[in-house]
Structure formats: structure tokens, C-alpha cells
């Protein structure tokens, strides 16, 4: 009997080792492909943020970035060029391809049909299929709401109700409109009298105008805080130069403008990339979308996909507590930004009080978007069709 048990255990061990082996193999054979709009050697900006996210995720999963990551970079939004880049990556035998730029959308859709054995994952897009093609984006508006709280408290302290916002675009894109609105509602939760002035660049990155527009908002519109939706830290640097304050975007901009910066709305791209790679390693390409649970990954504060950077010393006492309490409401799913419930945040002696009250969510022309007490607008609106500013926002 003992012999039998020993044999049985040995067999079990063998089987389990074999199992370990195969999963290790899957890991060692796993190849990640990526298509970037700018250089993979960038040291700041959009491509840099994604590249850092992908490499961090790979390190967390124990994948070798040198050997298992294949990148075609500086690929413009040209369907033929994107398809050629995909051919190159598939030729290298990659299992999953991340495309980070919106304009890759049609090429990725076509390639997903052409290469059913490869997973296609498209950042900022909206197309998908039921098997090997998904898209991913995040609730940046939630992070912006939190940064808006920091800005609102600062505006109360300085007594200046004018807040400036240097934006790539305005209502043309839901992405920028939802960001501006999320930020403005955060400011108003603290300071109901605050006005947000938006200045549009007409480009996602334009360092010269990012600085010039921030200065104009400060000088001509008397703004005491400069928020931004653009690539560089120029607006924050301009704010520091004029002795006012600001909220950055994409990365912690406190080192760029230590005397001005409060906090930045940031992305933790590695959160998604890790989830996607983990899922991809454990399934066939055709099961990817099913295993991910959704063809459109849309993570927020809850998933830690978006966040605010550590608060700087410029923030008003109690900011930390206020942000913590609002974050809790969002993470627990008790409240969301674009709903018929308005938060009021007050701070006394460094302790924040957050109260909820039913109120219409109105656009800046006075139209009711969500009636008092109503549920949040749908995700599809936030990502696709939000083409208005909320009350208190106007273009400068």
C-alpha cells in the first residue's frame, strides 16, 4: 500500500511539474507586440506613458522586455503603414498587439480578421469583435474630478474664482469635453462660484502655444489656477512663472513646476497592460474578449487605472482628506461624476465633510442633461458623444 501511495504521489508530482512546465513555457514563449505613434525612446509624453506601462507590466509578470517585446514605432495614422507594421509584428510571432493611437482603428479591425490567432488591443478606440479584438480606455474624468477638488480648495484660499484650462480640443472630442467637465464639477464641488475658462490648442501637443495660452488665461482672464489636457508641462511652468497654481496631466508635474503644481490626473497604463497580458497568456486568441469579460475595457479609480499624483506642498490643508473621501464614494460605486447628485465638499481644520444633494446636471446653455437624482450618463456618452460643457465652463 505504501508503495502504491508513494507511486501515486510521485505520479502526482510529475503531473504537477509538467503543469508548471507548460505554464512556464507559455510565459517564456509569450511575445508582446506594440505599435507606437512616437519613438519608443521618448522620455515624456503619450508614447512614453504607454511604453512605461507595457514594460512595467511585463516586469511585474516576469517577462523579458529585451527578448519578448517587439515594437514598431513612429507609425503615423495611415492604414497601409499600420497594416505593414502589423505584418512585421505577426512575422515576429507576437501573441498580442497593442496599438496606442486612435487612428490605427481601421487597420486593427481589418488585421483582427486576417490574423485570428493574434490578439489585437486598441487604446482609445471604440471598435472590437467577439473574439480577438478589444479596445481600452479609462475614466480620466474621475481623476480630473479629484484634481478639481484640489484646485477648488486652492481657489477658495486665494479668493480667485477664475480657473483656466489649456485643452487640446474642446467639445469636438468627448475625451477632452469629459475631462474638462469632470474637472469643472470637481472645482465647483468645493467652490460653487468658480468659473472655468477653456483655451483650445487644436492639437494634442503644441509646446509653444501650451505656454502662450496659459499665460493668456492668467493675464487676460485673471486665472489663478491652470489645468491642462495637453502633452507637455508648459502650462504648469507658465503658471509658476506668473506665481499662480496649476493641475497637470499624464505625469506628476511637481518636479517641472514645484512652486505651482498641486496634483496631476494620471494614468496607470500598466494596470490594463498587466491584465491584458495575463489574460492573453492563459487563453487562446479567440477566447480573449470573453476572458476579459468585455470588448471595451474602461477602468477608473476603482481599478487604479487612473489616479491623481501625490499632492504637493502647495495644496491646501485638508485636500488629502477631501480627495480620500470622494475617492471612496467613487470606488465603492456609491456615486459618479456625471449624475444627478451633486457633492459639496467643505474643509474645516484640515478635516473634509462631503455631503450629497440631488441637483440637475446642466450644460452651460442651461439644458438639463441629467435630472436631479438621476443616474450617471452612460459610458458611451462619456467616451463618444459628450459634446457640451457643463454649467460654469466657457471657452476663452
Amino acid at each position, binding site marked *: 500500500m505504501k508503495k502504491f501511495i508513494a507511486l501515486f504521489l510521485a505520479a502526482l508530482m510529475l503531473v504537477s511539474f509538467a503543469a508548471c512546465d507548460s505554464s512556464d513555457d507559455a510565459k517564456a514563449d509569450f511575445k508582446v507586440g506594440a505599435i507606437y505613434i512616437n*519613438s*519608443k*525612446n521618448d522620455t515624456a509624453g503619450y508614447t512614453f506613458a504607454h511604453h512605461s506601462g507595457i514594460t512595467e507590466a511585463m516586469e511585474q509578470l516576469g517577462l523579458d*522586455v*529585451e527578448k519578448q*517585446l*517587439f*515594437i*514598431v*514605432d*513612429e507609425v*503615423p*495614422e*495611415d*492604414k*497601409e*503603414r499600420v497594416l*505593414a*507594421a502589423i*505584418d*512585421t*509584428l*505577426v*512575422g*515576429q*510571432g507576437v501573441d498580442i498587439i497593442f496599438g496606442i493611437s*486612435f*487612428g490605427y*482603428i*481601421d487597420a486593427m479591425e481589418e488585421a483582427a480578421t486576417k490574423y485570428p490567432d493574434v490578439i489585437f488591443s486598441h487604446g482609445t478606440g471604440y471598435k472590437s469583435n467577439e473574439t480577438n479584438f478589444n479596445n481600452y480606455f479609462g475614466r480620466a474624468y474621475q481623476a480630473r474630478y479629484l484634481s478639481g477638488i484640489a484646485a477648488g480648495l486652492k481657489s477658495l484660499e486665494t479668493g480667485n474664482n477664475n480657473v483656466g484650462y489649456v485643452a487640446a480640443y474642446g467639445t*469636438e*472630442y*468627448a475625451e477632452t469635453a469629459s475631462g474638462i467637465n469632470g474637472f469643472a464639477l470637481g472645482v465647483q464641488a468645493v467652490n460653487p462660484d468658480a468659473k472655468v475658462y477653456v483655451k483650445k490648442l487644436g492639437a494634442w501637443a503644441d509646446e509653444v502655444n501650451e505656454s502662450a495660452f496659459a499665460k493668456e488665461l492668467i493675464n487676460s482672464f485673471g486665472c489663478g489656477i491652470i489645468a491642462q489636457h495637453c502633452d507637455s508641462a508648459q502650462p504648469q511652468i507658465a503658471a509658476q512663472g506668473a506665481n499662480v497654481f496649476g493641475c497637470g496631466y499624464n505625469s506628476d508635474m511637481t518636479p517641472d513646476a514645484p512652486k505651482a503644481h498641486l496634483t496631476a490626473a494620471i494614468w496607470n497604463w500598466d494596470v490594463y497592460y498587466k491584465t491584458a497580458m495575463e489574460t492573453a497568456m492563459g487563453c487562446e486568441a479567440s477566447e480573449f474578449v470573453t476572458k476579459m469579460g468585455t470588448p471595451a475595457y474602461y477602468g477608473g479609480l476603482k481599478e487604479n487605472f487612473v489616479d491623481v499624483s501625490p499632492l504637493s506642498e502647495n495644496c491646501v490643508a485638508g485636500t488629502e482628506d477631501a480627495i480620500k473621501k470622494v475617492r471612496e464614494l467613487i470606488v465603492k460605486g456609491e456615486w459618479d461624476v456625471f449624475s444627478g447628485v451633486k457633492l459639496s465638499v467643505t474643509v474645516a481644520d484640515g478635516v473634509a465633510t462631503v455631503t450629497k444633494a440631488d441637483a440637475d446636471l446642466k450644460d452651460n446653455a442651461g439644458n438639463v442633461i441629467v435630472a436631479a437624482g438621476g443616474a450617471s450618463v452612460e459610458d458611451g456618452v462619456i467616451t*463618444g*458623444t459628450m459634446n457640451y460643457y457643463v454649467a460654469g465652463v466657457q471657452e476663452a
Partner: protein
Amino acid sequence: MRFHIVKRDNGPFWQRCCYYVVAVVAALAVGAIILASIGVNPFEYYYKMFTMGTVGNKIAYKTFMNYLKEFVPLVLTSVALSLAFKMRFWNIGGEGQFIMGAIASAWVAFQFGAYLPMAVTLIFMCLAAMLAAGIYGLVVGALKVKFGTNETLMTLMLNYVALYVLYFIGETKADWNFFLQADSARPVFESFAEIAQFPSFSLGGKFELNITVILTVIIGVLVFFYLKYTKQGYEIGVVGDSANTAKYAGMKVNKIVLRTVFLSAALIGLASAFKVGTSGVLSTSVTNDVGWTGIIVAWLAKLSTPMIFVVSMLICVLQHGSTVAAVSFSQVDSSFANMLQGVILFLVLVADFFVRFRIVRVKKGGND
């Protein structure tokens, strides 16, 4: 100690070849040093580059197909530019003419593609592109002939006019703008691949040869004969060498200039029709810089049509191969290809200098 530059008699063909080979090898050596300094094994990199990553690649045929997609617009644009350059008309406007041609052919595809048979649509696309690009070039030719304007500046600046027209079309969501997808919230170019696309033929296996490749070779042969054996081709050369001589010989110089500029620009338009007719979609980077690279190719090939084909092939290997090689080296981004191309061009031009001249040391007091 002083140096003098002395013109050299034309050496034998193999000697000239040697200079160029040395130049390319030297350029690759410079590249190798840079590669090694950032921790990349240059041999590995160059191996991947020259094989374009096809070794051990399951879909290597795709690499060749994508390679040809880059090759066709470049070689045709370069051949077209060489026509103008032979006449000493500095057409730097390849980019702009290409863009105008691309917009025109896309316009035809959207307007008529749904009603006409595909073959007819494709022919109309080519004609529209040739006309649009041709006129865009002809304007500059006419201004030069009429008012003596500088064609280098004019064509150069019109590139940016065309580029911003394309940006405007590509970024303006509006009811009139049929170039963009109607159902996308963000501006994205609409595809017309289903109603107008140049066909490909399978050559056994999975490799498919696009008809534009064959047409391009035919056009290359035609241009070669046009320049070498026709009266018009001869006139281009004479006007290029000396407009006054041409006048003295009774040639109508203005007419020759206008005709040649139109032909040059129209052929660039045809290249753009081939490009968008293959991809089936416009894009703001539709030119892939062929208007610029084409100039380099034309000069490296010394304006010889067969050599333009050879040089284009090599430049495309360099461009396409570098992209593919850069994929597996994390330190190297695709800008490296551009830099290497610059180094090669520079050193080939240096070699070219030494083919034509030699430097002689002059001793003090000696007479030269």
C-alpha cells in the same frame, strides 16, 4: 602647404563603382559604430536589416509585398523628378504634387466608384491624379516662363499649401466632407478599397504581385526610351545644358519647359494614384516622404532611369529593413534608418566628388 582641386579624367567604370561601394561601406561602418555604442550588435542588426527580417519569418511573403508598396511610389516619383532635373528645372514640389494627385484620385473614387466598373474608376483615378498634379506643377512652370520666378522656392512652398489642404480635409468633420467616415465621432479617413483598388495576381504560393508594380516597370522603360531616343527627350537635355543654345537651334524653349514640367508632375500624380489605389484610403502621411526621398534617389542615380530603379530598391531595403530590424532592438528606434540614410547619402556625395576631382598638394613656390 596648399591644396588644389583638380578635375579628374573619367576613370574606368569599375573604378567609379569602387568609390561608391567604399562610400556605402564607410557609411555602414559609421552606423556600426553608433550601433555598438548603444549596445547593439551591428552584425546582427545589419543581418536583420538586409534580409528585412524575412529569415525564419512565417509570413515573409508579406514583407516583400509591403516592400513593393513602398517601392512603387518612390521609384515612379523619382523617375518623374529626373525628367525635370534633366532640364535643370528644380522641381522640389514632389510632395505637393503627390498630395494633389492623391486627393484628386480619392475624389474620383468616392464620386464615381459606386457607379462605374472598377477598371474604369481606376483609369479615371489615374487621369484625375495626373491632371491635378500636372496642373499644380504647371502653374510653377508658367510663372517661371512668364515672370522668371524661382521654381525651387515656388515648388517648395506649394508643398506646404498642399499638405495643409490635406490636413484640413483630414481634420474637418462636415457634411460636405465625404473623405471622412460619417459615423465616427473623431475624423477618420473613409476607405474606398471596396469600390476602387488595383488588383493583385498570385504568382504561385501566397505572394501576390500588384498590377501597379508591372505598370511602374513599363513606365520606367517608356521614360528611358523617351529620354534617350525621342526628339522631345533630346530637347529636354539641350534645354538643360543651355537654354540659349536650344533657342539658337530653333527650339521653342518655353513650350519644352511647360511640357516637361507638366509631364514630370503628372507622373508624380500617377505615382500617388497607384499609392491610394492600392491602399484604398487617404491619410495625412500619404506621401511617405517620396517627394523628398525621390530627389535623393534621382541624384544618387545620376538621373539615369535604370539606376533610379536600382537605387530605389536599395533605399527601400534600407528604409523597410531598418524598421523591421529596429523592432527587435529596444535601443534602436526607426529614426535610425533616416540617420543612416543621411550618412550614406553624404558619403556617396563625397565619393562622387572624388570621382570627378582629385586634391593635389601644391609645394611652396612651385607653380600649379
